[in-house]
C-alpha cells in the first residue's frame, strides 16, 4: 500500500506543480498587490478607494445579469429541442451550435461590429441609419451571441441524461406535455441550468473586449477598468478590483449552487 501511495504522489506531482505555479501563485500575487501600496507596504487604501468604481460594478452586473437571463430564455428551449430530437439530428444541431466557437471570440466580436456598425452591413442591407453600436443593447447582444453555447451545452447534456422513463412516468401520472416539462424535466435539469448560468455570467461580467468594441467607447465595464489599470501600470488598483471581482463571483456562484441538487454537488465549487 505504501509503495502505491508513493507512486500516486509521483504521478500527481506535475499536476500539483502546475496548479501551484499557474493558479495558486498568481492568486497570491493578485492578493499581495491588492493589499499593498506602490512601495510594497501593507495597505487597505486600494480596496477602500474602490468606491469610485461603484457605478462601473453596478453597470457590469446589470448588463451581465440581463445577458445571462436572455441566454437562459433562448438557451433552455434550444437545449430542450435538441435533446428531444433523434440522435442524428442532435449531432447536427450540436455541430451548428459549436461552429461559431471554431472562430476566435475576438474575431467574432469584430464581425458583429462590422455588421451592426452605423455604416455597416445591416444598415446597408435595410437601407437604414440605425445606431446600434455604442448602446447597452449592442453589448448585451454581443454577450449573448458569444456565450450562448455555454448556456445550451450543459443544459442539453443534463436533459439528454434524464432517463426516458421519467418523461413516461410524468405523463403516465397525469402530466400534460407542458407539465411534464415544468414539473419534472425542468427541476431535473436544474444542475445544467446552474452551470449554464455560471458559465455565461462569469465571462460576461468580466469581459472587456465586447464592451470596448460593441460599446463603441461609451461604456466602461469592470473588465475594461481592470485592463486600463494594468495597462497604465496601476498594478495595485487593478489587483484590488480583480480581488473584489473574484469575491463577488465566488459569492454569486455559491448562492447559485444553493439552488442546485445537493446530490450532484456544486458544478464549479
Amino acid at each position: 500500500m505504501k509503495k502505491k501511495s508513493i507512486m500516486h504522489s509521483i504521478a500527481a506531482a506535475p499536476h500539483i506543480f502546475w496548479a501551484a505555479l499557474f493558479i495558486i501563485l498568481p492568486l497570491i500575487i493578485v492578493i499581495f498587490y491588492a493589499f499593498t501600496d506602490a512601495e510594497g507596504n501593507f495597505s487597505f487604501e486600494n480596496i477602500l478607494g474602490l468606491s469610485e468604481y461603484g457605478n462601473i460594478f453596478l453597470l457590469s452586473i446589470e448588463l451581465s445579469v440581463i445577458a445571462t437571463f436572455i441566454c437562459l430564455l433562448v438557451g433552455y428551449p434550444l437545449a430542450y429541442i435538441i435533446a428531444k430530437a433523434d440522435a442524428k439530428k442532435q449531432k447536427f444541431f450540436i455541430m451548428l451550435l459549436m461552429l461559431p466557437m471554431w472562430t476566435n471570440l475576438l474575431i467574432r466580436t469584430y464581425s458583429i461590429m462590422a455588421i451592426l456598425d452605423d455604416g455597416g452591413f445591416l444598415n446597408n442591407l435595410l437601407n437604414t441609419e440605425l445606431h446600434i453600436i455604442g448602446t447597452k443593447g449592442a453589448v448585451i447582444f454581443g454577450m449573448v451571441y458569444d456565450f450562448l453555447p455555454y448556456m445550451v451545452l450543459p443544459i442539453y447534456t443534463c436533459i439528454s441524461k434524464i432517463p426516458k422513463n421519467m418523461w413516461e412516468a410524468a405523463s403516465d401520472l397525469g402530466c400534460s406535455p407542458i407539465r411534464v416539462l415544468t414539473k419534472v424535466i425542468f427541476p431535473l435539469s436544474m444542475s445544467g441550468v446552474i452551470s449554464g448560468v455560471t458559465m455565461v455570467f462569469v465571462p460576461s461580467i468580466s469581459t472587456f473586449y465586447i464592451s470596448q468594441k460593441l460599446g463603441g467607447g461609451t461604456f466602461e465595464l469592470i473588465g475594461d477598468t481592470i485592463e486600463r489599470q494594468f495597462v497604465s501600470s496601476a498594478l495595485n488598483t487593478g489587483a484590488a478590483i480583480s480581488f473584489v471581482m473574484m469575491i463577488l463571483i465566488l459569492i454569486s456562484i455559491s448562492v447559485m449552487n444553493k439552488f442546485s441538487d445537493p446530490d450532484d454537488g456544486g458544478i464549479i465549487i
Partner: protein
Amino acid sequence: MSKLIELKGITKSFDGECVLNSINLYIRDGEFITLLGPSGCGKTTTLRIIGGFETADEGELYFDGHEISDVPPHKRQVNTVFQKYALFPHLNVYENIAFPLRMKKFSEEDIKTRVTDMLKMVALVGFENKSVSTLSGGQQQRVAIARALVSHPKVLLLDEPLGALDLKLRKDMQNELKTIQKAIGITFIYVTHDQEEALSMSDTVVVMADGEIQQIGTPTDIYNEPKNAFVADFIGESNIVDGIMLEDKRVRMSGHTFTCVDGGYAKNEPVDVVVRPEDVDVVKPEDGMLTGIVTNVTFKGVHYEIIVDIGGFKWMIQSTDYVAPDEKIGLFIEPDAIHIMKKSKYSGMFGDYSSFSDEIDQLSDADTAEEF
C-alpha cells in the same frame, strides 16, 4: 367479470421488424393477468400500447368500450409501475406519491389522507420525508406502487417490476403484490419473463413468443395442457417427444405404445407428446415401459434431476430416489401424465435434454434481465 380492455388485431413494427403480429386479447375487470414470454416476444410492447407510450400500427384498443388509441397517457385511467421504478429524484417519498394527486388538483387534505393510506398499505409509514435515492430497491418499488395506485386507476400496468430485486425480496414482493391486488380489486396487467412468478401470481397467463400469443389460460391450464412445444418448454421442464396417435387414447412413442387420456386426432397423426419430469416413475428395467441408461444425476435438494438416454433422446426425470450414473433403469408413465399436442412450428425445437445445462439457463436469464 366484464371486459375492461380489449385488443383487436394489434400489430406493431419497429424499423420494419414485426414485434406484434395481430394480437387479440381481452382483459376482464379485476383480474390479475400476466404477459409471459422470453425477451423480444412483444410483451412489453403490448403493455406500452395499453399504457399509451406506443401507438399500434394497426388494430384497435378498447377501454371500457371506447376506442382509446388516440388518447394520450395522461388522460388514460391506467397507471404504470416502471421496471426501474422511475421515481422522481427531486421529490421526497411523500411528494412522489402525492404527485399524481397534485396533477389532478386534489385538495391538500385529500392528498394527505390518500398518501397516508398508501404509505400504510406499502408499509412505509415514517419514510415521508426521506429522499427516494436513500431507499433500498424494495422500498423504491413500494413507493412506485403507491404512487401508481394513489389516484385510484382502473388498471395497474407492471413492467417486470421485480426484475431488479434479489430472490428473497422477489418472493416477498410477489405475495405483497397479490395481496394488494386482492385488497383493492383492480385489474393488474403484469409483464414478466419469469414463469414461476407468472404461475404463482396470476389469474390468467398469456404466453407470448415471436410477437404472437401462444396460449391464454389459467396457470394450471397452461402447465397441464400446454398448446404447443414452445409453451410446454417455456413453462416448467418438459420432455417433448415425437409420437404418433394410433387412435383415441393410444399414442406410440420411443418404440412403445402408451395409453393416454387425449383424443380427437386423425388416425396415425404425428403429434408432440409432453411428459413432465416429475410424472415419470423410476422402476426396475424389466418393469419399465421404456428403458434407458442414466447419463447424469444432479442433487437439487427436494429431488434428484436424472438425465436418461432412451434410444438417443435424453429425458429429464425428477425423482426422490437416487440412481447411479450409467445404471440401466426402467420408466413407468401413468396415462394421465401423458399430454398430446398438435404439431406446430416449434416442434422439434425443444424438449430434448442432450445439451441441457443449468449454467447456460442461468446465464441467458441474466442476459435478459440486463437487456431491459
